[in-house]
């Protein structure tokens, strides 16, 4: 089956500065695809090229088999690129009415439906200028959902949200994928966010794609366990027996890593260590930080 979205050797140069350098990615139908990279990596520029806002300097984009910016493709896509694009002097409902009219006829019931979906129905008739950032973000998602798209593109959707807002946004995104069956492309600079929401993804740094695949695979070889135990030498030996490598990062503290995720199950480790007479003071499973993943990917 043809991918919903594909880029081929996509490049963008502003004067002499290369912002996106030969990025090729592929998003399949039903994917929740994480587009991961630090700030300034070229994520937003890539998304702009997907939506036809920016012209590529080279390479090409295929959106539902059409080139970037094609009307037939844009009719199937809902997107938020960078901050929510809303008219502050209009109410939430008026914003939706106007944006809906750009795509085609939209019955009023559909407006209520999407407002309900993002939990904004009660505030729909307030002017957008008094909305909080989280409400603007949700209204922008409602606008993206209006034309019943097949693909949703969200650029850093949790940026600037408070913890409750972040949680609500993640729940909403998961719901869009699970309940509405939408394909979602989500850009983020937070690995934990992508890990929690996405099944596939790509890592981009300095405009270049560093990795693409299953998110679980990206993390699998990079998980580690933080272990404080006595005696240390005995603990290191037991980890070795389990096929895991333990390194002492600071006195009394081990970081245990393994290519085999089974060897890093805290319950198994504790059982084996205790059985061998090792006292366990502290044990915790840890995910790598985005920085560590980048360093590892760039080094590779």
């Amino acid at each position, binding site marked *: 089956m043809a991918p919903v979205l594909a880029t081929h050797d996509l490049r963008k140069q502003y004067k002499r500065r290369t912002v996106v350098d030969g990025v090729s990615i592929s998003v399949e139908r039903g994917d929740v695809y994480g587009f991961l990279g630090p700030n300034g990596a070229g994520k937003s520029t890539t998304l*702009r090229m997907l*939506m*036809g*806002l*920016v*012209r590529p300097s080279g390479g090409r984009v295929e959106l539902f088999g059409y080139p970037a910016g094609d*009307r*037939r493709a*844009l*009719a199937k*896509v809902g*997107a938020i*690129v*960078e*901050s*929510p*694009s*809303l*008219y*502050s*002097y*209009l109410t939430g409902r*008026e914003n939706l009415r*106007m*944006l809906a*009219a*750009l*795509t*085609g006829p939209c019955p009023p019931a559909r407006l209520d439906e999407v407002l309900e979906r993002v939990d904004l129905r009660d505030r729909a008739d307030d002017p957008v200028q008094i909305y909080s950032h989280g409400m603007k973000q949700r209204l922008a998602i409602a*606008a993206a959902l209006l034309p019943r798209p097949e693909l949703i593109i969200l650029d850093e959707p949790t940026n600037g949200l408070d913890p409750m807002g972040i949680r609500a946004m993640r729940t909403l995104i998961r719901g869009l994928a699970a309940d509405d069956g939408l394909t979602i492309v989500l850009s983020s600079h937070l690995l934990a966010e992508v890990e929690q929401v996405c099944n596939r993804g790509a890592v981009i740094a300095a405009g270049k794609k560093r990795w693409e695949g299953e998110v679980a695979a990206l993390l699998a070889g990079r998980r580690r366990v933080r272990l404080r135990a006595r005696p240390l030498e005995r603990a290191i030996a037991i980890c070795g027996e389990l096929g895991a490598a333990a390194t002492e990062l600071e006195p009394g503290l081990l970081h245990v890593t393994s290519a085999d995720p089974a060897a890093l199950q805290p319950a198994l480790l504790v059982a084996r260590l205790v059985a061998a007479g090792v006292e366990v003071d502290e044990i915790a499973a840890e995910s790598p930080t985005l920085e560590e993943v980048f360093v590892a990917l760039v080094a590779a």
Partner: protein
Amino acid sequence: MTVLRLLRWELWKLSRRPSSYVGFVLCLVFSACVLGGFGYTQYQGKNIQGLKLDPSQYLNGPFFANFVLNIGFFALLPLVAATIAGSQLAGESKDGTLRALLMRPPPRWAVYVAKALASLIWLELMVVFLVGLALLIGHVAYGGGSLLIYVWEYKDAGVWIVPAGEWPGLLALACVGAGAALALIVACALFISACTDNPVVAHVGTLGAFFISSVLQRLPEPLMTPGFKDALPTSHMNFWHEVYRWYYPGGSTVDHHRLGIDVAWSGGLTMALFGLGLIVFVRRDVTT
């Protein structure tokens, strides 16, 4: 259909945006200032540009409205036109809302055309409002009657009177003509607006070009050759004044040759600027 649908929403947005009404407020202030000026300048005496006339013969509602339109055409309406059109693309680009428009199916050219048409319609509304308001103020202050025509460009023809039943048609035509002439300002502002993300650049750039051209146009001949003056855009924006000549007492004295040249110059430049703006807008990267 797409353009008409977009035009409808562009007009709706203009009608909902508070800043769209600044121009209407300026029209009110401008008319009030002119009224104040009438009370304290030469119009209060018995002299209009050296012509001995009794103020009661000409100082009335229609005269006031026509005067406000003629002065407003150079002093106020270019500012309003540059503000409306200059904000259309650069303003939305600065606010980030241009992205929302361009990420949806309507093509960029349709968005541009709809914004250009909406600017022209809103400007024409403003012209009609200015004249209507001046007519009202003039009627309250000075009463009604016939319209005395005195156009600086045709000062050699002196003054003439348009009867009470005929001047509404003349003022209506003058409003349409003035609006059409100001399309050049709209086109210039829209072109600059398509090139930048900052509406102030479009406003200042357009007004700067207009006022520089106006000043150069008025420099005496030893300083400015007639050929150079002819090439200035503002030299051809007065074509709408020909409508006054249709009402000349001895029959129309419209200079068709001059009218043709002015309309061709002004219209050609307007279309060229609209076209350039369209090309820039369709090809540009939206990075805000």
